[in-house]
């Protein structure tokens, strides 16, 4: 939360002017949407008659009722304490979202028949590709960061060239370059290693900056104390600096992992059967791509939510350790 003031003003939504504006804007918007041929129209049947024939009047009436319900809902939520507010708004948004997907008329039997394969094959592949890549990227990043901070011109040039190049190209292009380009040099690599290599190099370049910042954040007194005791560079880095930089490095690395989980979908172009690939292909025969895309979207979302919970725990853990 932002730094809260000690003086608490009334919630904006409890001001009559704001309420009136909400009703008015809602009325216009909901009327324009023409909701009388939806489930809302059905509820309005006693007032507007047959929804399909109610025309402009039906739309206006439905719009007014919905905007009033909406405003009352908002005003009521305004009375709740903070946590309850968050909870209720979350639930309402989620319900709206599900209703939105439900309105597509999806074939749930089909989804049920495919979802297990999407998880066992797709999620598994997505996760292991991302996990291997993030580990390799961290190793690349350590070397990148040390090279970038080094006073050796070669190391510095190579590291800055590397980060500049891989941060400057779209990841999809890197996937293609590695998959199609490396064989021209005589190294034929399969789709999965090519994907891992591309993700590693790209994320390694971004994470080089994270590691660099982490290493630089350590007080120079730590270097002096180590040096005064006769520790060499590698020892100081390994045992003194990196362990202290980890609390600063791990939380953003977790964020990178969550981002990578989604970016790993790009390796589907080279034929890796991960989640995105399956989302695009499983529904193909029966023309059920919408089903598969939405299922995959939900799976991605759930995955990232789980990972975000883990991430916030990691962050909390390191926050308590470092202070």
């Amino acid at each position, binding site marked *: 939360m932002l730094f809260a003031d000690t003086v608490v003003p009334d919630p904006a939504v409890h001001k009559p002017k704001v309420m009136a504006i909400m009703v008015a804007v809602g009325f216009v918007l909901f009327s324009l949407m023409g909701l009388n041929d939806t489930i809302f129209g059905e509820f309005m049947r006693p007032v507007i008659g047959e929804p399909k024939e109610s025309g402009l009047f039906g739309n206006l009436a439905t719009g007014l009722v919905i905007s009033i319900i909406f405003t009352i809902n908002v005003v009521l939520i305004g009375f709740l304490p903070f946590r309850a507010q968050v909870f209720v708004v979350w639930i309402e948004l989620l319900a709206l979202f599900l209703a939105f997907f439900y309105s597509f008329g999806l074939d749930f039997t089909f989804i049920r028949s495919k979802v297990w394969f999407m998880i066992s094959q797709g999620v598994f592949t997505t996760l292991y590709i991302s996990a291997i890549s993030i580990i390799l990227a961290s190793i690349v990043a350590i070397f990148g960061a040390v090279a970038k901070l080094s006073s050796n011109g070669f190391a510095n040039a190579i590291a800055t060239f590397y980060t500049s190049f891989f941060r400057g190209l779209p990841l999809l292009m890197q996937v293609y370059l590695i998959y199609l380009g490396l064989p021209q040099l005589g190294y034929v690599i399969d789709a999965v290693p090519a994907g891992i290599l591309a993700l590693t190099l790209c994320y390694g370049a971004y994470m080089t900056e994270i590691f660099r910042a982490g290493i630089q954040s350590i007080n120079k007194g730590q270097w002096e104390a180590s040096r005064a005791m006769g520790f060499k560079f590698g020892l100081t880095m390994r045992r003194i600096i990196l362990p202290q930089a980890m609390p600063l490095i791990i939380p953003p690395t977790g964020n990178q992992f969550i981002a990578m989980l989604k970016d790993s979908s790009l390796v589907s172009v080279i*034929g890796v059967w991960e989640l995105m690939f399956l989302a695009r292909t499983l529904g193909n025969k029966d*023309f059920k791509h919408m089903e598969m895309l939405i299922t995959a979207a939900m799976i991605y979302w759930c995955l990232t939510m789980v990972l975000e919970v883990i991430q916030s725990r990691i962050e909390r853990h390191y926050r308590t350790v470092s202070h």
Partner: protein
Amino acid sequence: MKLSRRIFTLATTAVLALSTSVAFAGEALDRVMAAGSLKVATDANWAPQSFINDDNKMDGFDVDVAREVAKRLGVEVEFVTPSWDIITAGRWNGRWDLSIGSMTPTKSRAKVLSFPAVYYYTPASVAVHKDSPYKTLAELNGAKIGASTASTFELYLQHDLTIDAEGVPAFEYQLTTDQRKSYKDGTAAMDDLRLGDGVRINAMVGSLPAIQAGIKSNYPLRVLGDPVFYEPLALAIDKGDTEFNDKLAGIVGDMKSDGTLTALSIKWYGIDYTISN
């Protein structure tokens, strides 16, 4: 200094040896026979030719043809699913041995790939939205027309299609438009067309069997006019292995003459597409 130069020379030689090794005659066939397995590249997004079936396995006409080819070679079959543009780009470097992916042997593709045999022909047709007013192809001139990218259908729209295979009837360009739209695959074009006439596109060019499969799955589309061209569809291999080429040509010839291909065509399309007319 001397040592490092020597290492450099060694490394360069190794790289050159590896990169040229692809071109040796008989190499692909030897590799297949030695491994006892034929790696076939095919699109997983191209029902009913090739797709992932209810058991989550590769299935379809192309897949059945590939299984039969492997059987006659006396080896196992294995499928890989790189995207279409990667398959057609050639230079596979031994990642896979063969493409059985309903590929049209165009002149530009022949620069990087060899086509051992044409195994069937599909009519390419134009589809429009069910509720659209079009009655003839000529009415679509200047309209927004979609096709999958790097496909013969797109080349047809670009008036740049040269088909160089036996038994293909001549065709002429019946559509002229500047407003072409490229799609990842044919299904994506159908998905845009189903939204309504002109919402995103007015028409699409695609393979007739695929369009018909879509219509069967309640896509609000209809086929407009007769097929615009027949595309011969061939097996493709990387350039340079004539033995493999001849072997595959022989196998497909046998499959044609003993009726295997016809049977597979009728199984998947209900029509014998192995002859063009």
